[in-house]
């Protein structure tokens, strides 16, 4: 097991009148190479949970293990943990601060003690991965559009070459093509380099398409944990938690209730198309079939 959370609880403002219980007895194991989609209503504890994975937040109680070691045990090197576990924050554009785009992305590699040439090569590769053209390398990050800023922030983490990549709603604010490009890129990194990905998202369509495991948070607890198809089959319960299934799921159920024998477990456009075409051809052959 790469990362393990054992009975983790976290309370903001512990002991004050503003106490908010954000994580309530979380038990969770993450294996190498998984692509996890983390979903849950607003305020359910997703951002709090992922900040435990790279030691930015210390649990109020419970343990966080990385490669079997408790990251809060004495003498543990949290700085080195953070070079293995890269986290893209929910509003990453707030973290941009350097004078130009390329210098900003070089910040992480620089801290790892790489030579300037290596830093620049890493930064350029990361910027290419997120689709920022060279013309923008020398522009101030503050002069970029919202979506461009977000791409640069994501590149800043990619440039660190992390083994575990955690992204907190990385696609919010990206145009549809940019969203697909970024997520395809991340899937590619995972397939090619075997990195582990945790993707926090409010887009059910995105997690349906990319994740092979879904974790659903509800009121500081893990409500479901399983393959996307199985989780989305429980869409009535998801709705009660402020979530939904991908639009496709609703289409398939509506078709089924009108008598078209489609697979209601389909969660992507591609799956739905195949299933509908098959159902239509079955219906037609029954109509035309011998009496």
């Amino acid at each position, binding site marked *: 097991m790469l990362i393990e959370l054992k009975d983790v609880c976290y309370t*903001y*403002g512990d002991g004050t009148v*503003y106490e*908010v219980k954000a994580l309530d007895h979380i038990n969770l194991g993450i294996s190498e190479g998984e692509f996890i989609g983390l979903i*849950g*209503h*607003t*305020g359910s504890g997703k*951002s709090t949970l992922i900040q435990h994975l790279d030691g930015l937040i210390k649990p109020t109680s419970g343990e966080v293990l990385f490669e079997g070691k408790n990251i809060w045990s004495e003498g543990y090197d949290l700085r080195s943990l953070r070079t293995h576990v890269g986290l893209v924050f*929910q*509003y990453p*554009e*707030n973290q941009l601060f350097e004078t130009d785009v390329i210098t900003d992305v070089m910040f992480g590699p620089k801290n790892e003690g790489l030579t300037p040439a290596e830093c620049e090569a890493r930064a350029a590769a990361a910027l290419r991965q997120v689709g920022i053209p060279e013309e923008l390398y020398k522009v*101030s990050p503050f*002069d*970029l*559009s*919202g*979506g*461009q800023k977000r*791409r640069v922030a994501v590149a800043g983490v990619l440039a660190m070459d992390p083994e575990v990549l955690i992204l907190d*709603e990385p696609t*919010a*604010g*990206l*145009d*549809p*093509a*940019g*969203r697909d490009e970024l997520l395809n890129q991340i899937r590619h990194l995972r397939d090619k380099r075997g990195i582990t990905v945790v993707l926090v998202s*409010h887009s*059910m*369509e995105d997690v349906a398409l990319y994740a092979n495991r879904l974790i659903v948070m509800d009121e500081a607890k893990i409500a479901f944990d399983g393959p996307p198809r199985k989780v989305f089959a429980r869409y009535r319960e998801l*709705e009660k938690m*402020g*979530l*939904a299934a*991908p*639009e*496709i799921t*609703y*289409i398939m159920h*509506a*078709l089924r209730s*009108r*008598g*078209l024998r489609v697979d209601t477990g389909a969660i992507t*456009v591609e799956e*739905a*198309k195949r299933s*509908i*075409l098959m159902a*239509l051809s079955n219906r037609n052959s029954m109509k035309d079939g011998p009496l």
Partner: protein
Amino acid sequence: MSIIRASRLGFDYIKYNDESEDAEKVKAISDISFEIEKGDFIAVLGHNGSGKSTLAKHINALLVPTSGTMWIDGVNTAEEDELWKVRQKAGMVFQNPDNQIIGTVVDEDVAFGPENLGISTEDIWSRVDEALGKVGMLGFRDRSPNRLSGGQKQRVAIAGVVAMRPECIVLDEPTAMLDPNGRREVLEVIRELNKKEGVTVILITHYMEEVIFADRVFVMDSGEIALEGTPREIFSKVDELKKLRLTVPQVTELAHELRKAGVEIPEGILTIDELVDALCG
């Protein structure tokens, strides 16, 4: 009279270079003209960097055109004396709520706008209640905004504008950080403001499903309005939209794919009911 009118509007960001004297120009909007009627619901789509936010900032005079003219309810936004008038007519919700939350307590934050309108304290608080209720955040009124999660902050930011009761609201990706429920609630709030109170709405979004409620859609591309039409007209152009780095709602995409595979259904299907009727009718 139209509430928003742009005539040959152009805008360049000017960047001053430290080393040299020359200023560099970045063209963000070039020569666009349009009119928006009172009570319209307009959605604006476009790739990252296409000029949507720049255009939005012209509507409440945060930016003034470098060429051409922008009028809000007949007032030229370039006239500095009229600035306050323009800002009162057009409220704005930005892309990132962190940058617009000022108060240390949620209800104070929402009260901040109306307090500047010179209305009675009683009126202020009834507006705050109403606005918080509309975005589903009444239960959080005593909380500190910094302590809210991303989605909760976004709703508070919207309440702050709603409490000003402007004639026109410009929302720059207001739902980007919300969960599906929150997104639906906020969209309902926006639609109600539009339908019941006749507020003119300009909604900038990257979520195609949110656009189907609009009367008209503007699609921006590199500082220009590349396409304009009803949602059905716009979403019938699947391939063209993809070239502009956009897409269509999933149901429209599925219908389009089925059509390509030979199924006889119309182009531009926007809702699940339409698709189901087309396949099972």
